[in-house]
């Protein structure tokens, strides 16, 4: 699909609403294994992007993504800020450097996720948002439909419940971190699903 300024602006609104709606839930997930501020932090981040949405949407998509990343880094606060920020900034940088077709997007996404992994010094199975990003990228690379990618994101977040946290504050809990869904994975799935549902509704028939 052709993704224009109106799409980006509407997606920003939808992501903000979705995080707002799940803010308490994310906070509860984080209270179980962390410091309990993930919902509030994400809400602050999305609010900051929302306030700048007109200026952001006026930019070419790669520059807009980079700008969103920077706003998230500066506003989210907790460890999630630099992680989401890195993802968006690297996506933007990758898109401004490369071609704009689908195969390239999967490769750009893979590189952006690798940058997130470096920033968090984490890998697969560490019970982080990466455990959603890796399978989502695999679906994108396999040209899956948006609905399928959304399902994959939710299932991937749920699968973090049985993982043992190896990064972040949850790792201090050791085995007690098992049995709780990771809040970062959960917010990542919510945002992925919001984007996918929008793409599904607005894809050319």
């Amino acid at each position, binding site marked *: 699909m052709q993704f224009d300024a109106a799409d980006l602006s509407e997606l920003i609104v939808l992501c903000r609403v979705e995080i707002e709606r799940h803010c308490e839930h994310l906070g509860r997930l984080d209270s179980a294994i962390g410091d309990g501020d993930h919902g509030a932090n994400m809400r602050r981040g999305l609010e900051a992007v929302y306030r700048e949405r007109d200026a952001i949407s006026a930019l070419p998509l790669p520059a807009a993504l980079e700008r969103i990343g920077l706003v998230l880094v*500066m*506003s989210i*606060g*907790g460890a999630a*800020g630099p992680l989401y920020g890195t993802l968006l900034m690297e996506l933007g940088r990758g898109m401004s450097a490369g071609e704009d077709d689908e195969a390239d997007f999967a490769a750009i996404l893979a590189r952006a996720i690798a940058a997130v992994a470096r920033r*968090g010094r984490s890998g697969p199975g560490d019970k982080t948002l990466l455990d959603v990003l890796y399978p989502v990228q695999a679906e994108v690379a396999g040209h899956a439909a948006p609905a399928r990618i959304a399902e994959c994101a939710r299932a991937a977040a749920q699968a973090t419940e049985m993982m043992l946290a190896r990064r972040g504050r949850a790792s201090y809990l050791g085995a007690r971190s098992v049995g709780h869904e990771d809040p970062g994975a959960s917010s990542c799935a919510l945002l992925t699903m919001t984007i996918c549902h929008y793409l599904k509704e607005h894809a050319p028939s």
Partner: protein
Amino acid sequence: MTPARSANVGIVIVSHSPLVAQGAADMVRQMVGDCVPLAWTGGNVEGGLGTHVAGILAAIEAAWSEAGVAIFVDLGGAETNSEAAVEMLGPARAAKAAICNAPLVEGAVVAAAEASGGSPLARVVATAEELSA
């Protein structure tokens, strides 16, 4: 800032708690007076527990020295946000900003003592990190 002060490596303290950060800074001051550039940041943008990149950047600027700055952090987000802040300094200055793998209070005090003698950044960092070895 006097030339003598800016010649020494600066110390930056980053905690989720402003009280912890300020308390650690007080202990550093007691140890070395004002012969080492020192700044602290603590709390999120709303004043609650947490850390944020803008606050860390401001602290780095406040404690900046051409000899470099050693940064001390407490938990996860403080480290990740400090890394993001250092990256935003640009490559030339980022090379002079080291995030230390050391306990916040003890590390900052030991590093400041080392810095007050005019040691280079690498030496200041190594001395602090010996605490974790």
